[in-house]
């Protein structure tokens, strides 16, 4: 509990002091409440004796109730502040972290997973920190204060009450671990069902054809049945412990009552005290019984805090201290070896290559040969285990990320557009660009015409027209970005392979403009697009097997020649149904 408490305070970041004062208010309120109930003892005794002190006690109870309300107001204000501001702050911290952490680490996490940390986990932490902790404090402190006050009335009763708490503790433990187990089982079953439902909807046309749908879909139905079984099992697991713990509390209360009656009968206690005791114990029985369920909520928070801290703990790639100035835009790999994990297979093995300024270099090879990894390392997706990469003579590790990225324009096969206007999407490459600059870039990228034809022109939101933009149009917008950025080195990752014939020509024209006078590195699947390259680097299993100009490589009659011939033959491939 203490550890949970510490974790929670530190999760509150700059609002830790607000959280602490909210908790202090919660404690004070609980103490006031406990004392108010404890005063029922002397009050009842005074009433039974016809004493005139009665109104003193009533007055004191009124004051305590007002104090309780006042403290609770403080608690609730602080709680809300924590709830709102900590969520905001944590999300901003996480956002900062996302832009700092190595891209390779980022790429390993699924978007959905990251989303759930930034939305769900943050919510779990703040709603528990903001609200639930106060309830827990109240449940714990108010009865404790009452027990202490009871000592002044009758020590035997107080001891009887004190026995109740420790006995309940192991039960809380059991409930907590059972609940954790239930959560785990149910989370696994849900994940299983989710993937089967996705599978089912994706495969529906095949499944329909083979009549494996709805109740006949064995895989799906089995998964749904597994889910229900897991849920049922979990609920049955929880029934007994929950029932036992409330039984323990209730039976304990009755035992205390019985003890007090026994004392009354032996004339060791006044009847009025029994009446007061009944009122108090029954008031506190309900909160004590639900306490176990509340404690399970802490596991949620612990998990959430763990997942957030885990993400925040990822270290950014180090930037060397020494000042380094780039001169020129040539790129050099010196004996670079890289694997994703220390023990994994090496994706690049002792790769050395030289890319002179303004040259055109092509990376070719089958998928998994390492050609994409080369461009990723160059943009510092991750650092290689061995070797050096330099740009303009400077080790890329000595440049800050923005310095490094200002050297490159990257055009991918898949284009990501933000849900914003087309203009803003282009401007992303150069935040202070004027409207004219954007129009110029769009013209150069061969997309000005279709953008102007849209109802709102450059102001058109990408989201509004969504699917109305074709792949080629999206690609041209991304090239306009790259043109606007005007970086000295252009990296092209097979930008035309996923396009219709008609868009392809337009995109090709845009690329022609983009690569003028630049150092160009292109990943090519279709070899015919890079015959003019100054250097074609052929990769296989992470090693450079050949490099040189197109004609020389053909003469060598090696791997490149083999790929070239396969593609030339395939160019004349046609679909026919009669063989």
């Amino acid at each position, binding site marked *: 509990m203490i550890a949970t408490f510490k974790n929670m305070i530190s999760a509150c970041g700059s609002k830790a002091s607000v959280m602490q004062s909210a908790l202090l208010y919660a404690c004070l309120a609980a103490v006031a409440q406990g004392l108010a109930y404890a005063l029922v003892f002397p009050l009842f005794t005074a009433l039974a004796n016809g004493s005139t002190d009665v109104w003193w006690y009533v007055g004191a109870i009124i004051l305590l109730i007002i104090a309780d309300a006042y403290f609770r107001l403080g608690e609730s204000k602080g709680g809300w502040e924590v709830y709102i501001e900590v969520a905001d702050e944590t999300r901003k911290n996480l956002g900062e972290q*996302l832009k700092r952490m190595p891209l390779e680490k980022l790429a390993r996490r699924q978007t959905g997973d990251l989303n759930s940390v930034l939305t769900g986990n943050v919510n779990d932490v703040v709603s528990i920190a903001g609200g639930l902790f106060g309830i827990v404090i109240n449940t714990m402190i108010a009865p404790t204060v009452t027990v202490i006050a009871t000592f002044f009335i009758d020590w035997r009763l107080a001891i009887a009450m004190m026995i109740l708490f420790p006995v309940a503790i192991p039960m809380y433990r059991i409930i907590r671990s059972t609940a954790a187990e239930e959560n785990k089982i149910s989370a696994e079953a849900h994940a299983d069902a989710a993937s089967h439902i996705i599978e089912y909807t994706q495969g529906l046309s095949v499944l329909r054809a083979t009549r494996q749908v709805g109740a006949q879909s064995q895989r799906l139905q089995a998964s749904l*049945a597994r889910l229900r079984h897991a849920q049922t099992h979990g609920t049955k697991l929880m029934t007994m412990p929950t029932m036992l713990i409330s039984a323990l509390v209730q039976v304990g209360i009755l035992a205390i009552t019985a003890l007090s009656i026994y004392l009354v009968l032996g004339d060791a206690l006044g009847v009025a005290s029994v009446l007061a005791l009944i009122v108090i114990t029954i008031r506190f029985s309900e909160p004590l019984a639900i306490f176990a369920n509340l404690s399970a909520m802490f596991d949620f928070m612990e998990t959430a805090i763990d997942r957030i801290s885990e993400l925040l703990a990822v270290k950014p790639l180090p930037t060397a201290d020494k000042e380094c100035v780039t001169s020129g835009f040539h790129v050099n790999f010196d004996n670079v070896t890289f694997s994703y994990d220390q023990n994994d297979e090496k994706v690049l093995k002792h790769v050395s290559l030289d890319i002179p300024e303004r040259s055109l270099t092509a990376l070719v090879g089958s998928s998994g040969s390492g050609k994409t990894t080369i461009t990723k390392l160059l943009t510092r997706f991750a650092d290689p285990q061995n070797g050096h990469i330099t740009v303009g003579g400077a080790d890329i590790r000595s440049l800050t990320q923005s310095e490094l990225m200002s050297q490159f324009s990257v055009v991918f096969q898949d284009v990501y557009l933000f849900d914003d206007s087309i203009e803003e999407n282009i401007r992303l490459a150069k935040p202070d660009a004027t409207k004219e600059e954007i129009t110029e870039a769009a013209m150069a990228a061969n997309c000005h015409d279709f953008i102007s034809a849209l109802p709102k022109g450059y102001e058109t939101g990408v989201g509004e027209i969504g699917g109305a933009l074709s*792949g080629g149009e999206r690609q041209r917008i991304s090239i306009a970005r790259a043109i606007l950025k005007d970086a000295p080195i252009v990296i092209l990752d097979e930008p035309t392979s996923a396009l219709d014939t008609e868009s392809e020509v337009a995109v090709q024209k845009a690329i022609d403009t983009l690569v003028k006078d630049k150092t160009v590195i292109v990943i090519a699947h279709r070899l015919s697009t890079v015959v003019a390259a100054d250097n074609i680097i052929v990769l296989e299993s992470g090693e450079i097997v050949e490099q040189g100009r197109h004609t020389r490589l053909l003469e060598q009659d090696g791997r490149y020649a083999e790929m070239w011939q396969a593609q030339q033959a395939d160019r004349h491939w046609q679909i026919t149904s009669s063989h």
Partner: protein
Amino acid sequence: MQQDSGNPNPKEPGLWTIISPVNKEIYTGMAVSLLSLIAWLGSIMLFLPITETLMSDETNTGHLWFLLLISLALVILSLVCRAFSFRISHLGAFRLEQILRTELTSRLAKVPLGYVVNTGSGALKKIVLDDVRALHAFVADSTPLFAKTFSAPVLGIILMFILDWRLALISLALFPIGMIGMFFAFRDYETARKKVDDATENINSVINEYVQGMHVVRTFDDGSGSFERYHDALDQATKTVRDWTAKSQTGAFIARTLFAALPTVLVLLAVGVPMYQSGNLELPVLMMFLLIAPTVTESIVPIVWLQQLLVNAAAAVKRIGQLRNVKLIPETEDAKIPQDASVELKNVTFKYENREDNALTDVSINIPAGQVTALVGASGAGKSTVAQLIPRFWDVNQGQLLVGGVDVKDMKSDELLKHVAFVFQSPFLLSDTIANNIRLGKPNATQEEVVAAAKAAQAHDFIMEELADGYDSVVGERGSSLSGGQRQRITIARAILQDAPIIVLDEATAFADPDNEAKIHRALAELAKGKTLIVVAHRLSTIVDAHQIVVLDKGQVVEAGDHQSLVERNGQYAKLWSHFDKAQGWGIRNQSTTNQSV
């Protein structure tokens, strides 16, 4: 409680209708929960005779212990009932989840396939899994609470009036004051709440976009640009929540304070003490009030929670209702069987439900059995729409679509899909063994048939050589352990095994690498042997030999014929062809270095 709460639209089934399959559990759960409440109140009521006996000079203590024992029995009964009411309602809720999921997934098998494809598996998963789960919270947790929340005040008030009507009236005095507090707290609640919900929703979508775009943004700079967008959006949303809290905080606080136990205790003491002193009230009765009255006032609080649960469930109910309301593809009574493998579109006009323009206007295409027909045109021309109409993803608005001479509307959908196989661009694989993935095309296929299909699809070699367990290797999530080209060949093997006489092929636009591309082409050639093949073509080179090329533009057929005749016509196709030729010849910086190229 029985009517469709909060749902004025009779077409959309309300919450209580949707959960009605498990009414048995719901009502049993409520009844048991009520029993638990009664037992608990009973056990408390026994404290009255107990304390009265203690106060009097009665000496028969055996009577006292007997009462205490009954009270204990009642408490235990109450606890057992409470645990079981929750257990019953939970098990009912789980049963409901399964019923609804089976119903919804069965329904998905009968709605237009196009709806499924367009909605996307992510959104459908959300409805079938998450929204159904949201209902669970309602059925499992709130139905027993419902019973308790509404009966506790009623039973409590009755008991109080039996004990002492004057004090009963006094302890109810706080009710109207609390109500006024609640009124202020929840005034404009709906609109404010909606704003907050929207803000929260906005936070989620901002986060989603930020996370998704991060990889791209990082290639421009260090991510500062999009971080600012993210930062601003968060500020905006946080401000909305902050304003809402500032406005509603005080009212809510007043309500919460008044409906807590202590103020009631206060009122009871203020009135009860003088009544006792003037001899108008017995001390045990005052004690009973101190026990019961706070329970009555406190029972208001769960009503607010329940309201929130209802609101949450309503959103889920709405989405489930929308899925349930999707029109089914009408199944014919008098089913016919296709006569051959021909396909014909007769004056087909088709419009997507949410669009204004026709996707296809008066399109007629005749596709004879055993021939290759290619559909070409710019994106948005309607070629994919034609392809989707053949396996009846959608129903045409006007005209007719005949498969084997029979209108697709006169066929059973599984019969149609046995005749038409659709090979998608993005391959779909089960997370199951390779063999089972291929066998999906023909569930009773033998291992030999599976292997033969894999061989024909050029997949056998990599299955045997590259995968540890050969045909028994399990495909990772979304086939991640296989390359794109390999996945495509597995789906082609499946289609070969399915052996449908008509194949609709949405040609892949991008291939992983040259080796794969050639193999996929060979696999497709095997698949097409002796079949009617309809290709949505993105690369014109592959369809030069097609028997028929249909050129679409803006939803209409503008030209049709074989390659030679279309080129000679010098129309749209000829233009596309010259584009294609140009694209094929393109290379980066080709012009400047022509002397060095081949």
